[in-house]
């Protein structure tokens, strides 16, 4: 589904990623771990198409197509979803209307009709209850004044609504207490199937107890320095990151 080939990315001329190679197939869960500043968030931003990040070299292939030149919205239309580490607060747009606009934009880009209002409402209710989101929450301004946990839950709610083929969860566990973490992980697991894939980016192993990865990759100084199975996450938890540096 996703093939990253020798990816070099820099911000303001400063090299952050120095040759990343990664292969993610449908049905798989990959975890990307690493110390602060290792380039984890840069990798997710580059795949999602953030224009502040410059791809200097390498390719990103999604479902066989090189997406390097595509705008963020075009990548979203193809089925890439990024759950933000720091979801942006946007006063004046409600959660419901944001997700409606988002879904209909995606449908329109794929040449499909807009979703009828009643179907939309039904889907919103269903996914909100999956993530234990109160209906009052849905009429609030997007992320404005949300707690850390509410923001993350809202991200996964959007993921549930959009049903992407590839979801990248950037530090979704940060700022979550254990109950919220379980709700979020449960949401992700329910959405997981053989046709989609998930990349979990995290500093800690904690989330991986709930969203169990097939592969774990360790990122350091902009390169993947070690890959392995889920046991690698436990090893990192015990030994810290120093031994792989």
């Amino acid at each position, binding site marked *: 589904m996703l093939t990253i080939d020798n990816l070099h990315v820099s911000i303001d001329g400063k090299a952050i990623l120095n040759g990343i190679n990664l292969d993610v197939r449908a049905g798989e869960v990959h975890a990307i771990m690493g110390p602060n500043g290792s380039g984890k968030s840069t990798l997710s931003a580059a795949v*999602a*198409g*953030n*224009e*502040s990040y410059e791809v200097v070299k390498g390719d990103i292939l999604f479902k066989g197509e090189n997406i390097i030149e595509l*705008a*963020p*919205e075009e*990548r*979203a*239309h193809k089925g890439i*979803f*990024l759950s*933000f580490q720091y*979801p*942006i607060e*946007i*006063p*004046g*747009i*409600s959660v419901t*209307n*944001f997700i409606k*606009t*988002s*879904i209909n*934009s*995606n449908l329109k*880009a794929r040449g499909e009709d807009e979703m009828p209002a009643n179907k939309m409402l039904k889907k919103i209710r269903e996914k909100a209850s999956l993530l234990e989101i109160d209906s009052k929450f849905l009429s609030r301004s997007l992320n404005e004044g949300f707690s850390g946990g509410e923001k993350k839950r809202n991200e996964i709610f*959007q993921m549930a609504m*959009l049903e992407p083929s590839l979801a990248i969860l950037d530090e979704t566990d940060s700022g979550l207490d254990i109950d919220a973490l379980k709700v979020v992980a449960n949401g992700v697991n329910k959405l997981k199937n053989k046709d989609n894939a998930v990349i979990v980016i995290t500093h800690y192993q904690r989330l991986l107890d709930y969203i169990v990865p097939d592969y774990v990759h360790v990122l350091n100084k902009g390169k993947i320095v070690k890959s392995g199975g889920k046991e690698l996450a436990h090893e990192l938890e015990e030994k810290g990151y120093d031994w792989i540096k």
Partner: protein
Amino acid sequence: MPLTEKLISSFLAFELDIDINSPIHSIRTNAIKKFERLGFPNRKLENWKYTSLNRIIKEDYTVFSKKKNVIDFKKVQDYFLDNIETYKIIFVDGYFDPFLSQTSHDGIDICIMSAALTKTKYSKIINKFFNKSANPEDSLTSLNTAFSKEGVYIHIPKNTVLDKPVEIIHFATGNEAALILQPRNLVVVEENSELEIIESHQSLTVNPIFTNSVTEIFALRNSNVDYYKIQNDVITSSLVDNTYVSQKRNSEVKVHTFSFGGKLTRNNLNFYQKDKAINSTMNGVTIIDCDQLVDHHTLVHHANPNCESHQDYKGIYSGKSTGVFNGKIIVDKIAQKTNAFQQNNNILLDNKSTVNSKPQLEIFADDVKCSHGCTIGQLDKDALFYLRARGIPKIDAKALLTYAFANNVLESINIPELKHKIKKIIAKKLGVSLGFDL
């Protein structure tokens, strides 16, 4: 001939056409003398530092349209509010159009100034209120006063909640190569009464139009007035809107200004609080581009205790457009317990757009709450990426953020049909098809 001279000489011709023995005629003659002395304002004046009228007054305007022109309702239908009953006072090239209008004398007076200034049954109200709150030292107001003849006259007696809004449209047909229009409006809302007004100026061609309008509003005890100005004229029209609001105890007046069109738009909005427990609200959304200019000059004079004023102006500028906000708040020594809030937020979408924002607070009382804030920034890049990462195309994402930025002010519109119309204008202005049904 320069416009100033042309106007002054036109006054003599104007006098042949009106009743010079009427008591208000001395007001007119004093006003033309004042204008003769002051002339058009220039940038040497502090209040006109950022806005030059030069490019507007260089046109060779006709002062009075030579004939009454007729327009077909079907051609202008889109400029009216949809799906809602309204009283209508419609002018075409400065003349009242009885076919497009729907006036009323049924206990209330929703009619025209030319009748109010000449018929004796209105003289009591005219003598009491006409030109009583307009600033006689202001040159453009004086110019309007000198030529005051036609416009809107609204008198709502005590204990009357108007059943539907009043819609005022000033059309210009372009039958004159260039035309100056000077509507003069008087609105008197008596005790415990309520009124909603929606006003716009619409030229139907690209021939230059310069409108210099004066509106006086008197809101008596416990009255409620909502005044919506839709400034979405063609790019060759300019407008100076001088509005004077005089309020009595417990009254609440809100002026909402939506500025999207026109070449140059200057709003001189003045509130005078003449008693206690008064609430005054001014808000606006400005979205302009190319070389458009919109200038909001507000004044609130808190002259009595326990009053409030709220100002919230949002501006979004692209191209070489210019925005000006100057908000003056005067709190007299006697005006203790005043609450005065002022906010002006601006987004510049291009390197070449400019905004000049200036709060001007003169506070002489010591027990007051006055706050003001002004911001000038750009659309948040991270927010833009967030929306785009959810599949919302860049142009829609920008529009959505712009809309969200202006949302507070849009939410203050109490007439759903009007809100819908304004959202539609904004979507068109931003080049998107989003319904903004947010």
